[in-house]
């Protein structure tokens, strides 16, 4: 430990002591982070891929590439956060009447990074990635409204993720939980740099999401193909629209909360301190004015995915399309009216608690409507149990359980009994894992063939599904029991022998979940190896109904050679029904697309430098970072050469190649979708 007053103009408070040599586990994690980074750099250099990565990926402003990069970021962070979850579970399993293998400080960092990563750097990038990839295709657009802004959002999020990864090596991270409540996170009780890491990584993610929200709103309102009315839009696009609007309203409270906390810490102000007129309840209100809408921001896109998946794999139109949209909107609005249920115990009057409790229960109504709509979508459908649908069904059952325990928690007297126990942990994992993560995985498996041109291996998909689902029940059902027995959350050590068996079961469950994650990895590996037997270049492997399936797989850079004219819901299904699913165009027009831009990566690197400088009080680095950001934006504003034109010959060439594939393809029936014969052309039935 270094003294708090130590400061050096070049390195701020950063010294070699920051490397966590005092703990074996932390050293292991730091080594993995360093080895991972070095290994990646070496591999890229050995294979000579720097130029490719820079010009095809980092500077790309294509919504499809940006979407894929978001999902890759999210999967990397998912791996770290799941490993952390397992370490927490193992620690708790062995720490009944015993101190276990983790020091309390380290344990505190683990649940903080686990929660922070899962929310801001796993699920948010995952859903942003899927939305980015899919929504422009679903609405018949060639890109999002502001492609360069999109790239900036991505790299701001990546800069935040970089900070969290850096904190493994140049430790410590915050111990204040993902919520970072002051006064614990104030400078008085937390003089180290850990909370700074949390503040700046979360702020970067928050600003990135705000910009994403703006971009998506404009995209969905203004860039729909001719004829695509709002009430023709696919459900996934609808949920994305709601989420985008929610981001505009919900992210600023988080930005304000972290910014004011930073001002308290850096400039000695008194927003949330316990003296001099500070008021920490302001922080808690601000945080949850973000935090509760956030849970719907992460769950609604998954609802969108499930809506697509239930319809496609039941070979039916969605049951209750309009009611699903109304329910989505109702949830979006209600989600801003319930934030107080996160702190029923913090002193407001019983009447206020009652009002917020009732508001909370109301959300159950539109959610229930959705559950019935999805079930009725399957009813009398031709259901195929392909992987995405398995996740969807597991969601349906599991989410209802989580929702019901949520209704329990919304009753203030019950909340008083179980708040801050593992009952709450069980509840929110019970809604978040099936309700959000399963949705993301289902979406990943559903749209993967579209994005890469081949299907994922079905067998490993099922193994992953079984491990995740069984693992989930084993890992989290015991926590309900433990919570009712009174086990506090975030406990590094407990003193009740009766907790032990439940904690052991939960630990086993978490290992099973790890097996599920590994299976997903194997699935990807196997699928890449065997991709030639699973190609679906024609583009429609699942007999899809919406526009994204009407393009080749992967789609050309410009998505649609000619923008489609939309006449109703499920446009691709209508086209198939009328027998002109793949119209041959006689003439094409040249297409204007945005040029690649280095602005996103530049701002990403500069803001990582800025925030790293702020974390460690390295002022010159922070100033340089800020200057680079401002300069980069101004320089970019003088660039008039931002568009390029795809020539008619190029388009003709690309389209001809796809039409040749289509002509050679033999349509398959829906029951054959998981055999090599499925090359992405669906036989039309009913």
């Amino acid at each position, binding site marked *: 430990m270094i003294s708090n007053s130590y400061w050096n103009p070049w390195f701020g408070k950063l010294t070699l002591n920051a490397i966590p040599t005092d703990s074996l586990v932390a050293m292991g994690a730091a080594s993995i982070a360093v080895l991972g980074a070095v290994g990646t750099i070496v591999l890229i250099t050995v294979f000579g891929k720097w130029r490719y990565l820079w010009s095809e990926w980092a500077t790309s402003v294509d919504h499809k590439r940006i979407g894929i990069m978001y999902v890759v970021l999210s999967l990397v962070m998912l791996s770290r956060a799941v490993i952390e979850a397992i370490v927490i579970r193992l620690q708790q399993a062995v720490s009944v009447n015993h101190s276990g293998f983790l020091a309390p400080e380290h344990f505190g960092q683990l649940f903080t990074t686990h929660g922070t990563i899962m929310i801001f750097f796993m699920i948010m990038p995952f859903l942003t990635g899927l939305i980015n990839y899919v929504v422009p295709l679903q609405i018949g657009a060639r890109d999002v409204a502001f492609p360069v802004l999109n790239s900036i959002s991505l790299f701001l999020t990546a800069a935040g993720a970089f900070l969290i990864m850096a904190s493994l090596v140049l430790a410590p991270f915050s111990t204040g939980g993902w919520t970072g409540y002051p006064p614990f996170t104030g400078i008085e009780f937390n003089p180290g740099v850990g909370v700074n890491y949390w503040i700046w990584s979360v702020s970067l993610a928050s600003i990135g999401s705000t910009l994403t929200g*703006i971009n998506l709103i*404009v995209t969905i309102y203004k860039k729909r193909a001719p004829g695509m009315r709002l009430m023709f839009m696919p459900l996934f696009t609808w949920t994305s629209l709601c989420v985008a609007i929610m981001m505009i*309203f919900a992210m600023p*409270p988080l930005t*304000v909360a972290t910014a004011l906390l930073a001002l308290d810490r850096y400039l000695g102000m008194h927003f949330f301190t316990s003296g001099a*007129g500070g008021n920490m309840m*302001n922080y808690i209100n601000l945080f949850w004015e973000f935090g509760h809408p956030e849970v719907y921001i992460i769950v609604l896109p998954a609802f969108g995915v499930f809506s697509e998946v239930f319809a496609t794999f039941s070979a039916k139109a969605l049951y209750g399309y309009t009611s699903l949209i109304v329910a989505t909107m109702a949830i979006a609005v209600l989600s801003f009216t319930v934030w107080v249920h996160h702190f029923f115990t913090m002193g407001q009057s019983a009447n206020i608690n009652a009002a917020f409790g009732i508001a909370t229960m109301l959300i159950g109504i539109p959610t229930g409507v959705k559950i019935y709509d999805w079930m009725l979508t399957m009813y009398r459908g031709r259901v195929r149990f392909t992987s995405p649908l398995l996740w969807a069904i597991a969601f349906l059952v599991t989410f209802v359980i989580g929702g019901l325990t949520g209704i329990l928690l919304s009753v203030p007297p019950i909340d008083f009994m179980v708040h801050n126990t593992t009952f709450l942990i069980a509840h929110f994992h019970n809604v978040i894992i099936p309700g959000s993560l399963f949705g993301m995985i289902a979406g990943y498996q559903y749209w993967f063939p579209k994005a890469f041109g081949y299907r994922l291996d079905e067998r490993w998909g099922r193994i992953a599904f079984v491990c995740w689902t069984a693992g989930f029940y084993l890992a989290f059902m015991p926590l309900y029991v433990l919570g009712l027995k009174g086990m506090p959350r975030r406990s590094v050590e407990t003193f009740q022998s009766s907790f032990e068996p439940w904690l052991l079961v939960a630990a086993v469950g978490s290992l099973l979940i790890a097996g599920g994650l590994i299976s997903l990895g194997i699935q990807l590996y196997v699928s890449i190896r065997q991709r030639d037997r699973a190609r679906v270049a024609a583009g429609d492997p699942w007999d899809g109904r919406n526009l994204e399936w009407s393009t080749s797989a992967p789609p050309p850079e410009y998505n649609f050679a000619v923008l489609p004219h939309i006449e109703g819901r499920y446009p691709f299904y209508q086209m198939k029904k009328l027998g002109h699913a793949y119209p041959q165009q006689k003439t094409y027009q040249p297409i204007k697309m945005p040029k690649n831009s280095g602005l996103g990566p530049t701002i990403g690197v500069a803001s990582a430098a800025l925030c790293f400088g702020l974390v460690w009080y390295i002022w010159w680095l922070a100033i340089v970072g800020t200057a680079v950001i*401002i300069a980069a934006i101004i320089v970019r504003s003088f660039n*008039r050469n931002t568009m390029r034109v795809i020539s008619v010959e190029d388009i003709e060439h690309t389209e001809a190649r796809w039409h040749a594939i289509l002509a050679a393809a033999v349509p398959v029936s829906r029951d054959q979708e998981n055999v090599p014969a499925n090359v992405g052309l669906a036989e039309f039935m009913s």
Partner: protein
Amino acid sequence: MTNSTTPLPRLYPGMNLGETDPDTHEAAEELVFGFWVFLMSDAVLFALLFAVYETMVNSTAGGPGAAQLFHLKPTLIETLVLLASSFTFGMASLIMKFKQHVVLLQIALIGTLILGVSFLGFEISDFAKLTRQGAVPQLSGFLSSFYVLVSTHFLHVLSGCIWILVMLIQLSVFGLDETVKTRLLRLGIFWHFLDIVWIFIFTFVYLLGLL
């Protein structure tokens, strides 16, 4: 290309270029709409800072409160300066739309810039005076929230001034082309928005504080 006599539909709130430049009129739709959405999020940000301020008005921790610290005259002058800058920007927008005259436009923008910078100057001297009296943001929750609310607006005006400067240069380099016009449209909305936010600050912070 639309015939310049047929009225064009309004595409977004605020000044539309309409028939005076139909191409830019259309090109502006997504850009200006997007900017309105951004302002929405910015408005939420200010609303929250106002809320925080209101909860902390009385958290003076024994230090000075609004009534002891604020003075009507300098803030009124600041307000009038900023309102005047909104007027000059309004002129700039009208020149851009109807006269399409680069030099006149630049003059109007320089006027706005001067007013904007004077506003910033007044505020700095205000802050300096408060600091000399010992009323620093570290003194109490009330002062923290006051400084942060007002200086967030300050930083916005500062970025607006930098933006005007950049646009002045771009007007010289590129003339009044489509990109410059759509940027000025957005800058205009931004500038008026900051004016409105200031009116709220003037009312809720200064006027009510002095009441």
